[in-house]
């Protein structure tokens, strides 16, 4: 399979709680990106972290990258019902490969 792995596959939380999603990949990367998808259609880019970065923030999003473990995590703080969606990590491999390889995703449900 092309895909990396994400866990959990599904996450259900209450509004105001934090949500953490994890992603693992298989080979050396140039960067790793997180995307959000509503209702199984278009994906929206959330954040990109370069291979030489360890942590990045954007609003309520915090992404970490551990290249030694080939893993990344996405933290959404103070979640809202509108954050309900599927979240995917996508790896851009190094070595001249210019395609994004997606994980299987985490389905997040935030309950009011």
């Amino acid at each position, binding site marked *: 399979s*092309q*895909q990396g792995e*994400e866990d959990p596959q599904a996450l259900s939380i209450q509004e105001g709680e934090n949500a953490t999603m994890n992603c693992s990949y298989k080979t050396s990367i*140039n*960067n790793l*990106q997180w*995307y959000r998808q509503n209702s*199984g*259609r*278009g*994906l*929206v*880019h959330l954040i*990109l972290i*370069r291979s030489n970065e360890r942590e990045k923030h954007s609003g309520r999003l915090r992404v970490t990258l551990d290249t030694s473990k080939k893993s990344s995590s996405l933290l959404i703080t103070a979640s809202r019902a509108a954050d309900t969606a599927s979240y*995917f990590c996508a790896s*851009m491999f190094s070595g*001249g*490969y*210019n*395609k*994004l*390889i*997606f*994980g*299987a*995703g985490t389905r997040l449900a935030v309950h009011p």
Partner: protein
Amino acid sequence: GAGVSQTPSNKVTEKGKYVELRCDPISGHTALYWYRQSLGQGPEFLIYFQGTGAADDSGLPNDRFFAVRPEGSVSTLKIQRTERGDSAVYLCASSLRAGGYTEAFFGQGTRLTVV
């Protein structure tokens, strides 16, 4: 246009028929990607173009699938002799260039159903 446009949004076809899916990327984006997404799965890479040429078509599942981008803008994904297993959402994305630290912008996808 403002974003990546894909047409049609939905396509129902009979097994064995030929279909074409169209993608209009963001103006000025040189890289264009096609992905296929089955229910409950992440997008699966099919092919990407840098300009007019297919730079990597390693994800095309078999020779029934073909894609073109003759003028370096609009792309068409063509599927011959469709099979029920081809049913999926086909996503197109474009980026300013391929690789590097560039984000991809996705269209809303074409939901293909083969009956």
